């Protein structure tokens, strides 16, 4: 199998030169995970200047602007993203040093109490409601993409209204996680040297209830964005041109883990995302769009939908209404195949055409293509029959 270009040509117009204040929703299902596509967005933004061939052919929207990326990941840890980006030729640690990239870990200590040091001490210091430690029924393991080597596992409270469906007993670290906390956690982010305070890994803490808790998260992320921007102004080189791309990786975890019990619903999540959008140039958000999460709430009559199903469907569909572009990943309709990983459908979202600026979104057209993720992480995107 020949090595693929990091940015498949069919995909390039959609991942580079995003229009200002746009939202791009990337919907994934269990069998077709979107990690590779998220990485392509990182690559297109961070590598736009060095690889001029892709920028020349597609990236007229860049205008030589420096792009920076803030990645907020709620399901996968720093180590996973660093390793995956390395396979694409992106050195995230180096880019973090250069203040072009910042990683926000939304999972590790989301429900742990607020701490100043990144290493948690003992579970006794957790001050809030996180007294009981349950084995985390983690969200779907990325079957389509490569499995993360090591994952930072959270010490989090029992998720209230979520039915524990689909626990993943196969994951090795999940067994070791719940009992001893202190030994596991410090060794978890080995790539994060303790010397950096803001560092590569900023961790989110959720405390309190309702919109106030989300406001605090928003402030934390805004601080990271401001840090990237502020540093650029200090170094005084083309600082005004830098655009920050915000990548939110599966914020639906936040919705699922909090839910109505914490007074966080679809509207609050949407407003939280809207708030984050105000700080950045463009936003890419990945969401789960599995059948039960979307359709159980709308299939009227059969069964009372759970709050999670209602809220998730409202959040996902509402986000698609707000999006300029919706990239939908799904399994191949005809079943699994050896040389096709899934189907990518690019559709225009509900906010398409709101701005009259036609040249900003001129080269986007709706499309459906197949993709294949190879073992080495390379991805080929091709039309049917090619």
């Amino acid at each position: 199998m020949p090595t693929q270009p990091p940015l498949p040509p069919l995909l390039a117009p959609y991942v580079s030169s995003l229009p200002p204040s746009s939202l791009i929703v990337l919907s994934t299902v269990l069998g077709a995970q979107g990690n590779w596509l998220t990485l392509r967005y990182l690559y297109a933004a961070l590598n736009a200047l060095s690889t001029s061939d892709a920028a020349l052919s597609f990236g007229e929207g860049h205008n030589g602007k420096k792009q920076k990326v803030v990645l907020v990941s709620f399901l996968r840890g720093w180590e996973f993203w660093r390793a995956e980006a390395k396979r694409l030729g992106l050195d995230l640690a180096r880019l973090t040093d250069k203040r072009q990239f910042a990683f926000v870990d939304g999972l590790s200590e989301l429900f742990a109490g607020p701490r100043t040091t990144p290493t948690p001490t003992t579970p006794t210091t957790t001050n809030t409601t996180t007294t009981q430690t349950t084995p985390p029924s983690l969200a779907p393991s990325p079957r389509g993409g490569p499995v993360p080597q090591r994952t930072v596992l959270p010490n989090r409270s029992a998720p209230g209204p979520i039915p524990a469906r689909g626990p993943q007993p196969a994951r090795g670290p999940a067994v070791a996680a719940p009992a001893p906390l202190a030994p596991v956690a410090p060794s978890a982010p080995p790539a994060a040297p303790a010397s950096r305070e803001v560092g590569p890994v900023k961790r989110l803490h959720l405390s309190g209830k309702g919109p106030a808790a989300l406001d605090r998260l928003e402030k934390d992320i805004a601080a990271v964005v401001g840090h990237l921007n502020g540093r650029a102004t200090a170094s005084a080189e083309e600082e005004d041109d830098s655009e920050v791309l915000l990548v939110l990786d599966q914020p639906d975890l936040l919705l699922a883990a909090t839910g109505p019990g914490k007074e966080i619903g679809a509207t609050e999540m949407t407003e939280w995302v809207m708030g984050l959008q105000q700080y950045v140039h463009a936003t890419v958000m990945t969401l789960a769009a599995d059948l039960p999460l979307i359709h159980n709430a709308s299939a009227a009559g059969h069964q009372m939908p759970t709050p999670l199903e209602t809220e998730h469907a409202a959040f996902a569909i509402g986000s698609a209404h707000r999006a300029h572009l919706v990239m939908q990943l799904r399994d191949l309709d005809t079943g699994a195949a050896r040389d096709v990983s899934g189907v990518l459908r690019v559709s225009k979202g509900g906010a398409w055409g709101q701005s009259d600026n036609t040249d900003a979104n001129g080269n986007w057209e709706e499309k459906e293509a197949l993709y294949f993720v190879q073992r080495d992480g390379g991805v080929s995107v091709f039309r049917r029959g090619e």
Partner: protein
Amino acid sequence: MAPTNTSHRQTHNLLLISKLLSLRDTASPLALVLDSLEQPATPLIKEYIRRAKLSKVHITFVAFETLRPLEGVDAFVAARKKSPLEIIKAVNAAYPNVSTSGPSRRRLILIDAINPLLHARRTDAHFNVSSFLSSFLMPQGPPTVSKVEASLVVTFHQDVPSPPLPSPYTPSPLSMLTYLATTIIRLHSFSHILAQKAARDRSLVPPVFGLEEELDGVLLGRLDKPIGNESAQGVVLELEHRRKSGRGVLEWYILPPASRYPPQYAKEIVTLLDDHPLYRPPEEPDFGAGEEEPESTFELRLTDRQRRDREGVVLPYFDAQQGDGPGEGGRILYDMGEEDDFDEEEDEI
């Protein structure tokens, strides 16, 4: 019957939609736009803004999910993280209180999506959609000198599931809104309507798109050119208008894409769906003009003379009915033509 009906619809219903979209005579104080992911309301909202600009109507945009103001909007009210009361206050404050202008000023209030408000946890149990919406139309407080005629256009995403109802006896927000609205516009994508019509014409099950397909991982089914047809663009409006008399009007219209006409175009651009050449292709001009006869190598038609001769034939039972007595009937009377040759054996008379 049919042609008069069509012309009636063409005149009356086109006048109606033009009145509704241009907000003339406050024909409809509350218009409810039901959209879906397959056909978002953006083109229609932009059309509302365009027409309001043409007739100098003040536009207030209440944004629950839009970040940036749309072009042409006079006042932009971000409703994010606001309680219903704050929104009402902000909207009422957005209108410039000028008493000097003419006898009645008009204003248009657009709400980009009412769903987040209905979903929000901050709206308590006392929140009431009807009082919320009517407070826009009839603002409380000191009566202004000039009466302001406000029209409200509310967009509701049909495919976003509603939150569970607090009590089993309360109506759902959608039924509440449809009850309140004086005009309901349901949006469809023209290409989907065409595909469904093509299926129905063949007595097939009409296809569904997007979320209704209930496929794993499919949120949107819309593709730009599913059949490679450039001209199948546009928004189909399914209009239900309630007149003051209580009579309802149902009609289907099509709104062409905004690139087809200049922004200052003052004429009516909406047409009836039935008048669209793609939805109902124009009939062939010679179709039904003459009697169609099957084509064959035989000459099946009669010449005039043959027809005259055929009519002249007196069939035997006519002769039998003459009543010349028994025994007289039953004979075959035949006048020899010139082309007949007399056969001695058979034709004995």
